[in-house]
């Protein structure tokens, strides 16, 4: 049971309708699949292949290129510690080593209780707030060793309800009401917008 559920099939169809070609929706759809199960399952990839009209191998081909898609169960919280240059200068590597010791796992590993997966990641765009990390891609800035221990304790105690489980990307989604849509057309049939032609027509 890890094809998309009914609600997510409807969501997938809405997402697909926003693209001139179905395959363009693939990465957003993989996020939907990952949100449902916490990782991307083979059954979900087969389902996505049906939805966008490609083969399951093509889905895997795309999915496997991107760092965020995981093909095995992950911890409830993905802790991504940045060790890129700006963070390294201010203790990012020491923070990672502390996390390894505290959680008893190496980057890529998951704690036995399934709570945490640790990753050693590249720049996460909070360089002036180094050293920084993300929990399920939510930023924590200027993280000290003590601050890290406090964060882990809070997460274990369920005191950070604003951080969704791994796999949930945005809690707000784009939704375009049918009567507000300008219209997404196939690249094969779409032409010059009428409003543009009327404005660039030679003066008579």
């Amino acid at each position: 049971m890890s094809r998309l559920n009914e609600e997510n099939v409807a969501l997938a169809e809405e997402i697909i309708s926003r693209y001139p070609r179905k395959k363009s929706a693939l990465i957003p759809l993989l996020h939907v699949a990952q949100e449902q199960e916490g990782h991307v399952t083979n059954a979900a990839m087969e389902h996505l292949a049906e939805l966008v009209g490609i083969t399951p191998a093509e889905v895997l081909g795309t999915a496997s290129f991107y760092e965020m898609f995981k093909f095995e169960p992950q911890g409830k919280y993905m802790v991504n510690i940045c060790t890129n240059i700006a963070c390294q200068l201010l203790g990012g590597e020491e923070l990672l080593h502390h996390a390894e010791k505290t959680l008893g796992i190496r980057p890529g590993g998951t704690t036995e209780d399934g709570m945490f997966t640790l990753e050693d990641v590249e720049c996460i765009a909070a360089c002036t707030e180094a050293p920084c990390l993300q929990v399920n891609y939510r930023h924590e800035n200027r993280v000290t060793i003590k601050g890290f221990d406090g964060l882990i304790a809070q997460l274990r105690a369920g005191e950070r309800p604003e951080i969704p489980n791994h796999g949930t990307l945005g809690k707000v989604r784009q939704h375009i009401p049918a009567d507000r849509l300008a219209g997404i057309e196939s690249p094969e049939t779409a032409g010059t917008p009428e409003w543009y032609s009327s404005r660039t027509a030679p003066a008579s």
Partner: protein
Amino acid sequence: MATNAYVPHAAGYVDNEGVKIVSSRFPYEDSHTLERSLATGGYDGMKKALRMNPAEVAAVVKDAVLLGRGGAGFPAGVKWGFMPPVWPRYLVVNGDESEPGTYKDRLLMENDPHQLIEGCIIACYALGLNTCFLYIRGEMPVAHERVAQALNDAYAAGLVGKNIDGTDVSIDVVLHWGAGAYIVGEETALIESLEGNRGMPRLKPPFFPAAKGLYLKPTIVNNVETLANLPWIISNGADEYKKYGSERSPGTRMLAISGHVKRPGVYEVEQGKVTFRDLFYGENYCQGIKDDNELKMYIPGGGSAPWFFEEQLDIPLEASEVGPAGSMLGSGAIVVMDETTDAVRACLRVVRFFARESCGKCAPCREGTTWEEKVLQRILDGNGRPQDIDLLLEIGANISPGNYPVAAHPDGGLEAVPFPPKQTTICPLGPSSVAPITSAIRRFRGEFEAKIAAASEMSGSAV
């Protein structure tokens, strides 16, 4: 409102004195809402543009000399002019910000999403197209949520979508999100990714996006910050815009200064008016080097940029000054390193980034970056060999032949080699990995040699 201070709700942003073109709403806590946007002139530029002729709008942007803020610094108005008269055509917004040291686009998307959406509509109108894709980096869910909410509100308010602001103009802006791949910031890789493929760059020619982009149709790819400038430019005009910044680089830039400074932050700075020295030591900016240490080196434009040193401190921050001096302003990311920094360790960390992010399409980059990392790692670990320094330079020359851009070092007899480097690869990722290597070796060769000499002594053998 306090000025020259951090703004708590926009972590990292410093509200300093000076003109604000793209960060004017940042001091407001509700800067991301439609209400705040509309109360502070939001969508006025778009409304004005929709009542002009599209060609006039494009002419204003061209006249304003709006240089692309993504890294290459190419004038947006000129780029727009490369589109052949072929439809359909697309606008793709590059919000896949991942260059080490850079995070202006994340702040712009999180704190003023309506300004970006307004910029998108202005660009679409000028280009005569009705579908825009806004590609946001996957690791930025807050930006994703803020832009999604802003789009939902703007659609409901009639500011995006069908019959915008009561006119006959209809344009859709579709939010798209990535999933973690630095290379997707390269525009042809971004297009591949948007087509649902692995994000590998396309060969140019023939795949210049303006001619053969998304679905092989004419496509303009513009950076978030570039588009965020459009509402101000259209509202106030090109002449007004050119009053700020320098003649060759008008307007401002959002610069992120990180590393060993007392007050790291993202500052909106007029181009060409401020030097690196002003930025690092000025009271309005970073207020000096951390712990009053000596400056050792700095990266002037993101991980891909060759390093600068003390001698380059008085260069003004504009692309046309930094390029001839041997580096680039790139994406506006400046990383400052003080005397406590180990040049080999810093070099390895930047190189490791490129090795991890190489997409694997071109052999010189795929193999070269991997070997660069391995060799640097063994030098740092105390297993370096005497020939390793030359080996590193040789690997670099296979990815980027000829004289690699480097900053001048009068005492060391080095003359500046201007940017950009040559490349044996499809995109600049591989050649970028050579920047930290040549920068570090040409300036701090002694540090490499000392580590290698210590290794030889330990092993008791002169290899």
